[in-house]
């Protein structure tokens, strides 16, 4: 995986800022490279993904159209590339919103415990047992059409996963000796949370982040397939599948192209999650606290 090589930039960048761990730099470099890659993908599009050439509808793959054209005479390959940007950026935004809010709630309840913990966790469980996609449909139905509605809906459903995981991790960390030691030294609670516990729970957060990214991409495609989110004609993978349904039998490639792209993309992100998880798991303590 070429993108994973960007981890190697870590040590180089690390020289310029010796206070920050090289692996943090590696991760940051990776994220930047991945986002840039997705952003520049559309520039490789051979055709305008929005331009319909009705005389060239349902063309087979060829030199002009690498994956052929759809029923509206638009280049399928170019649409996939544009879709990558839309899908990835929207999904990242959902994950950022959900992870931000969910982790904050999780850390808070984990640290506070007691009544707040019980109430918030019961609420999270309540949200979790409901079918996520159905809730998303209701929320985006209430908010009206548009990309924002779907992003908010997915984040609103998804933050509870982060809250629950983070709360459990914080509970576990709280019981560890280094926290007890800090408490014994009279370090205030917020400082324990920010300076001692938070760095130690970054690994599970990152791992969860990658897995949830793939969940969000799948759900996003599912919701657009159902007609929520982007407007008709937008090159979005789920939407492309929905629009090709009526030609499924005669031209299965129209469904397979976005379908397999989603599958491949989701598998890749999951593998990335494994890689990140592995890298961080073994040397977690030494990584964040090199001087311990």
């Amino acid at each position, binding site marked *: 995986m070429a993108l994973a090589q960007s981890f190697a930039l870590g040590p180089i960048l690390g020289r310029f800022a010796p206070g920050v761990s090289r692996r943090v730099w590696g991760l940051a470099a990776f994220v930047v490279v991945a986002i840039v890659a997705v952003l520049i993908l559309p520039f490789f599009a051979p055709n305008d993904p929005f331009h*319909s050439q009705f005389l060239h509808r349902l063309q087979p793959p060829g030199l002009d159209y690498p994956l052929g054209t759809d029923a509206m005479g638009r280049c399928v390959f170019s649409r996939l590339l544009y879709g990558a940007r839309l899908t990835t950026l929207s999904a990242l935004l959902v994950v950022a919103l959900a992870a931000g809010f969910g982790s904050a709630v999780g850390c808070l309840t984990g640290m506070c415990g007691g009544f707040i913990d019980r109430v918030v966790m019961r609420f999270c469980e309540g949200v979790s047992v409901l079918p996520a996609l159905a809730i998303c449909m209701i929320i985006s139905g209430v908010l009206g059409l548009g990309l924002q509605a779907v992003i908010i809906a997915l984040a609103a459903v998804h933050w509870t996963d982060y809250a629950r995981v983070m709360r459990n991790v914080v509970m576990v960390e709280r019981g560890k000796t280094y926290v007890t030691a800090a408490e014994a030294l009279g370090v205030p609670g917020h400082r324990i949370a920010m300076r001692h516990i938070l760095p130690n729970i970054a690994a599970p957060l990152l791992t969860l982040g990658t897995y949830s990214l793939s969940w969000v991409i799948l759900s996003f495609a599912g919701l657009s397939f159902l007609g929520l989110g982007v407007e008709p004609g937008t090159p979005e993978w789920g939407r492309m599948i929905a629009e090709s349904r009526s030609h499924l039998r005669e031209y299965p490639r129209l469904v397979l192209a976005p379908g397999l792209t989603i599958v491949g993309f989701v598998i890749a992100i999951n593998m990335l999650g494994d890689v990140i998880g592995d890298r961080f798991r073994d040397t977690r303590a030494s990584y964040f606290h090199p001087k311990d």
Partner: protein
Amino acid sequence: MKTRNKILTGLVLAVAVAVGSFFAVRNLMPAATVDAETAPVVASEPKTLVVGTMWEALPLSIQPRRSRFFNESEILDTLVKLDYDLNPVPGLALSWDRVSPTVWHFNLRDGVTFHDGSAFDADAAKYALERVIALLPYAADLLNISKITVIDAKTLEIETTEPFAALPNQLSDAITVMYGKASFDADGQFVSPVGTGPWKFVEYIAQDRTIVERFDGYWGDKPVLDRIEYRYIPDHNSRTLALEAGEVDFVDNLLPSDVARLSADEKFNVYSKPIAGLYYGAINAGDKSVLNDVRLRRAVNALIDRNTVVAGALDGIGEPAWQFFAPQFDWAPKVTPHAFDVEAASALLTDAGYEKIDGTWQKDGAPLTLRILSYSSRTEMPAITEVMATLLKQQGIATDVQMYTWEGMLDFVKRGEYDISVVFWTPEMTGHPDLHLKSQFHSKAGLNQQFWVNAEFDQLVDTGRTLDAGAERDATYGRALEILQQDAPIIPLVHKVYVAASAKDVAGFRVHPSGFFYDFKNVSR
């Protein structure tokens, strides 16, 4: 891990869909052939036709107000029926006379009984019509009935609020079906349809099927088959697959892309015919839309090549619509059709103060942008809407396309927050111009949500319905339709072509041009 399971499920589903779509046909079709060849013919087994339908045969609930199905399936009859050229022909009424401009006499058929054995007579007809008018707010508008009187057992007198020549045609509308009293319980609540038709209602299973059986006491020619099962299969691909798998014998509303394939397959009969039905862009002619300028409405009409709409959105299954009523209906007066004419449109737009800058029509620096709404419950609507919007875009008019549910779309339409809503109606359904012109385009009509007001059109439509068939009526409606072309509150897009397919052994099916009549009486297998 939970997320992981979801991903796995997603993967499995994606692969299953992909693989399934490839092999479903190949795997299922031989099985169907074998079944048909080896199935023993048992004399006592009832002859059943299984029909796959796009809409639920009794939609939402078994309420009469919702269902054209009772007429479509001929569980219930209407007083007047329409033949295959949409001419009114005797149904439960043998003949009708207009004894004065506002009074009609309907002579009812003798010896007709309801499925429960009770007799059909003028009392029963009066009861049923009054019921329908009470149940359906728009039935009163449609029928214009002020008073129904029973003259004798076989004569029904209907008095209309104004001279109303369209009454016999309107009485063929599916909503005017003759419910037997047994259709309702003691409290007047609807139970199940009891009618006089060739098929009697047996069972309805929500979201699944409706079953009817032959009624031996039917007044007309008895059906050949014993039983029909209407199966609800909303997904077009699944419905066609069910036919190919031998699960159903007849399906309607084929996907355009399936028509060529099934036609080439000798195991199936494909039925295709232009029928009542028009896909059109209903323009908001009110203050909230730029399209309240007639020049823009006409320009938009001239900028859309309907041939491309039919080819691009419907794989050629449809007739390009350049006027309101489909030209094959003789009773509709001829009008000047629209034409795809970019130059004329440019002249109109320029005249209206727009200028084409960088390929985009603009006025005062703002691009001409149209908000186009439609609904996705009818599969072909998004495709038609998108092609229409794309064609406008290619001509330099920006569009903002949004898909809703039917109700969701109506919310915006009623508030006037749209420029064009793409809809489908069957204006030719009763074989008379009055139906749609009066109920949708008259400025006083409840269903006129286009804020289009044209006094001359109103007056012509009000006059037209009072006139008997003839030159005067044709001239009146001809003028009204010409206004509809020139003042252009609509963009006619596609005239509907009905397509259905059946197994090869199904014989005798004919496509009825109203679009609301299966006529399975003569079908055999």
